[in-house]
């Protein structure tokens, strides 16, 4: 997967089937509600209804997980922090105000 798609959304080619549609749907749910109906329909057409429902579930799940992390002050797990140091650098995660490395 092209990690730039995490930051750039549908403007970057993730290299995944339906990656652009998944990014558009995520963006619509979280930031662009006026596009939600169209993004949902596009995702269903590209990947299927069950996949769209699962994408909605995953967005819901991570709306939850980010708040658990941010509200309890947990650091990135030690082994994960070592393993994904390059990824964190590439995505600029170390610049976030909430960053906490163990």
């Amino acid at each position, binding site marked *: 997967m092209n990690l730039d798609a995490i930051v750039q959304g549908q403007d970057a080619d993730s290299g*995944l089937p339906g990656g652009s549609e998944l990014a558009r749907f995520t963006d619509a749910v979280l930031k662009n509600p006026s596009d939600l109906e169209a993004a*949902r329909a596009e995702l269903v057409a590209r990947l299927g209804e069950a996949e769209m429902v699962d994408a909605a579930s995953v967005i819901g799940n991570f709306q939850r997980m980010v708040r658990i992390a941010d509200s309890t002050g947990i650091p990135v797990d030690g082994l994960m922090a070592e393993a994904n140091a390059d990824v964190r650098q590439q995505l600029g995660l170390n610049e976030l105000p909430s960053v906490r490395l163990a």
Partner: protein
Amino acid sequence: MAFDYSNAPFKIPEYKAKAHRGAWQYMAEPGSWWTGSERVAIAAASRAARDCALCAERKAALSPNAVSGVHDSAGGVLSEKVVDAVHRITTDPARLTRTWVESLIDEDPFSYGHYVEMVSLVVNLISIDTLHIALGLPLEPLPEPQPGDPDGYLPPGAAVDVAWVPMIYPENLTERESDIYFGAPQMGHVIRAMSLVPDAVRWLNNLGEAHYLPTPEVGDFSKRGRLTLSRTQTELVAARTSYYNDCFY
């Protein structure tokens, strides 16, 4: 019946509906630190936060502490402090700090147990509400609070180490909460984060399995639980969601 998806425009698997009904029951019952009425009020305050003018102003400010005022919320049985905490967790979580969390703890009483249980209720609600919003479904009415008193259970193995709140390492679990990590010798911080309130971990696991993956499968990237998306597609959606929330984790 709550979460009746029979007329939904999209087929929603029964296992998801069952998990949502269970989460609603969990919300309505007395917990370890809050009564059922308080717990449902916490959920109501979280929903109100989405349209709160003060929260919007704070979100736009350089520092959330630079803006004072009163939240738009039907706090009901909750104190202003609790309503403020719920609103901040709901709308601006990336700018919470250890100092802020410590400032909440007092003899009101408002303990770390109250805090962790409050976070649990807020995040479960947000997870389910987000799914409804994404699918264009109306939000489920909040449940009727159930009577009873909190049990005040404090796991003896919980201690402050790497986080702002006390957590339990797997080796310090007692019989009463021995199930919450599935017997794993190690557990990620994001699961341990809720362990001061063992039921919060149980519902973190239950909803996680319905919306994402069973907790024991999260670290194995060959697994995708019941999801129809590939694991890589799933992680793209997850990472994009975390990115929008300015979440380092």
